[in-house]
């Protein structure tokens, strides 16, 4: 039971950290890029764009098709 709770807390902590980063990135003058900014940066190249879009498609398949 303790291990399960710890695992769930681990996921929650990482997801909360991602949310905090997004909030920090939205502050004026922040050096931390927002999710949209760094995704846009990665998607500047054709390979990066393909990789991110394939990741999006994989997420849909993983959670909604199977």
């Amino acid at each position, binding site marked *: *039971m303790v*291990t*399960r709770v710890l*695992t*769930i807390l*681990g*996921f929650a902590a*990482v*997801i909360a*950290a*991602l949310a905090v*980063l997004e909030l920090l*990135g939205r502050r004026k003058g*922040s*050096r*931390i*890029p927002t*999710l*949209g*900014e*760094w*995704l*846009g*940066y*990665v*998607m*500047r*190249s*054709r*390979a*990066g*764009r393909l990789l*991110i*879009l394939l990741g*999006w*498609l994989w*997420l*849909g*398949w*993983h*959670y*909604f*098709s*199977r």
Partner: protein
Amino acid sequence: MEPMAADDIPRWPERWPGRLRVRSRGGRPARKVVIGAGLAAYSWVAASTVPFTRNALLVVLLPGAAVAVLAYGRPARRIPPPDRVDVTGLSYWAVCIIALFEWEAAAFRDNSLWWHPSLTALIDPVLGVRPVKAAAILIWLLSGWALVRR
């Protein structure tokens, strides 16, 4: 940090002069409502599909094909990406995402047992509720549109 590889993605509006018309940010509310209602309806129907079936695969592949067409065939008006991003700031994101994958991989390695569940194992029961699954599909569709504009 120097910018990544050369920007070889054609950007609106240089290559598509026919699409030069400037739209106001809040323009065409009726069109947005119709598209939003269509996406919501699609999500609701898609949420009714049974996993591991042909229909469940199609409801994902259809938006995938639409995004591919929009991304490469008929690019949407894109949001200009930043010329550079701060390496330190980006590393915070990288650390968190790697930690998420590592945590997931550790659970997957243990066959996602009850005492060490993967994120997928935790989310799947929640997605068993149709309104939740429909909302998740709608968010997924909207994120696909957001990515096409990047």
